[in-house]
């Protein structure tokens, strides 16, 4: 992205060439300070020796990655086996994040469609309504959700009152509650990019398809979806990535019974374990996985553009 800026700025004349390079400096400084430096530190820490009760000893070690992949028993002296503990924690987090993404997509797409097909001023009101809850801090919203769904909370009282159930629905401290929390936290990240795509969609295409006797299903599948696909993919990434590292919903709504990637990392820094290199190594593994997903997306995008 930054490279593109330099080349297009330098095309004019030699006079601007030096200026362009200097103008790009703040961007590089920000990338360096907020991206390269922290990630670099994390990478270095993940290869250091842990210090008891937090901190690192500046000696190279692969112990953190060894701990992630190999199980040497309770006392660390058995022959190494594959360690499933952390792989399972990752799998659980990925599964939860994927499920949350699917739910968000199924609710978010029709919502975005509905908003994008309203008239101008109504559209603004609907968008505004979507964003209102997100002016409140995520922690507060998650705790509020907890109050709503607890065994003797308003939701259960209402259901009991209507007679739909005769004993309270047990929602709190279940995986369903975690799903609900993730879905609620990240829904707008799905709605807004899809809305942006649908808004640009030329509805004359739909009319043309209808004139040519295309069914609604065919119109959706062959015309609408390919056009709004970039918005859908952007929405999916924006929901999936933060869900993957989420720990508020699992802790507050799921009862913190099982580690998620986020809480596992937190435990290495804030808990008794105090194993900073291991925390850094888990973070690096998570980061690498996210990078792979994003790279695949970018590659698919560029292929598509090339084929157009």
């Amino acid at each position, binding site marked *: 992205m930054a490279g593109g800026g330099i080349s297009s700025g330098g095309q004019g004349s030699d006079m601007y060439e030096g200026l362009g390079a200097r103008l790009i400096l703040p961007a590089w400084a920000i990338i360096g300070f907020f991206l390269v430096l922290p990630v670099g530190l994390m990478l270095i820490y993940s290869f250091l020796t842990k210090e008891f009760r*937090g901190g690192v000893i*500046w000696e190279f070690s692969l112990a953190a990655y060894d701990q992630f992949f190999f199980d040497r028993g*309770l006392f660390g002296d058995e022959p190494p086996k594959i360690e499933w503990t952390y792989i399972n924690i990752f799998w659980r987090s990925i599964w939860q994040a994927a499920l949350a993404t699917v739910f968000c997509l199924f609710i978010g797409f029709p919502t975005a469609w509905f908003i994008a097909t309203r008239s101008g001023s109504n559209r603004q009101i609907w968008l505004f309504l979507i964003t209102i809850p997100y002016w409140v801090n995520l922690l507060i919203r998650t705790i509020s959700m907890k109050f709503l769904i*607890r065994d003797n909370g308003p939701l259960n009282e209402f259901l009991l009152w209507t007679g739909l159930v005769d004993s309270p629905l047990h929602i709190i401290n279940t995986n369903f509650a975690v799903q609900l929390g993730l879905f609620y936290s990240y829904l707008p990240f799905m709605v807004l990019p899809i809305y942006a795509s649908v808004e640009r969609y030329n509805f004359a295409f739909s009319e043309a398809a209808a004139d040519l006797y295309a069914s609604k299903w065919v119109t959706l599948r062959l015309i609408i979806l390919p056009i709004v696909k970039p918005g859908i993919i952007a929405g999916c990434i924006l929901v999936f990535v933060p869900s993957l590292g989420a720990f508020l919903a699992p802790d507050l709504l799921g009862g913190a019974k099982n580690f998620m990637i986020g809480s596992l990392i937190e*435990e290495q820094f*804030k808990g*008794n374990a105090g194993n900073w290199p291991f925390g850094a190594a888990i973070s690096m593994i998570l980061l690498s996985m996210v990078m792979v997903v994003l790279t695949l997306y970018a590659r698919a995008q560029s292929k598509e553009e090339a084929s157009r």
Partner: protein
Amino acid sequence: MKNAFKLGVSALALTLASGAAQAEGKLSVYHWFEYIPQEVLDKFAAEHGVEVTMDTYDSNEAMLASLKAGKLGSYDVAVPGDYMVEIMAGEGMLDTFEHTELSNFGNIQPQWADVSFDPGRKSSIPYQWGSTGFSVNRDAYSGDINTTSIIFDPPAELKGKINVLDSQGEVLALASMHLGIPQCTTDREQLKALNALLQGVKGDWASFGSDIAKDVLVSGDASAGMIYNGFSAKARSEGANIEYAFPKEGFVVWMDNVVLLKDAPNRDNAIKFMNFLLEPENIAAITNYAQYTAGIEGVDQFLTDEVKTAPELNPPSDQPGQFVMACDQAVQEVYDTIWTNLKK
């Protein structure tokens, strides 16, 4: 090379952290959440013309991590628990003071004037002490609750309705008492039994959480839960029909202490603050708020009747309480594995 890099990083951390409180007339306190009433801080600020700022933490380990990550040098005093005082002293994070610097030092109760975790009280003064056990909702269960079986081998009425503190030290200490094995044991069979106990009972627990320990009992989300005694008294006064247990197998005793941090930016004010907290009237105000027990003589006359008579604060004298021990590295690594197994 790597040392230069390390130096650069810590210098950077220092410059970033030191913005907090440098000037005279300030005091920077690092404290547990929901513990000290604002009026006490205001009173100190007014008496000594000092501007007081406070940051809070929710576990000893979180505080240690934050100080290690570069916050040391930006706070004057912190309030670590017993074993954490020992750990922080071992890490060189504490400054020392002479007893003559504190005119109220003589107010400390004799049993707390010299303690194992800070021999000679060189860096710390007693703050509040209490116990960590569990409470049971009496509407849900009416049987005998003075046994650790309530948590580790729960009766049918309480299964799936138990909250456990999200704190490795206290859970493993209480579990060790349940099994009748010493804390930080090096015996492999005992450690295996500890691991097996937690694996077996996990399904009966509803949630892990420390800062929610009171709320889940008040709201009824949990019918039994591990909790600090003062927190339990608060839950009872908020209307929960709960009783705090003093299990016959033992319970955890803890003491929070005010420590003078190394490189304190306002050491003089920190000493003044510690002396202030050794005044019976001031420390009693905190006891009345937090509902724990002060380690200072002459506090009684300032306590509310509610605190004086609270059953949570008056353990039967024949019941054994134990401080949580700080294990050595080898045992701690096994403890970490047990804890990860529990939550994997």
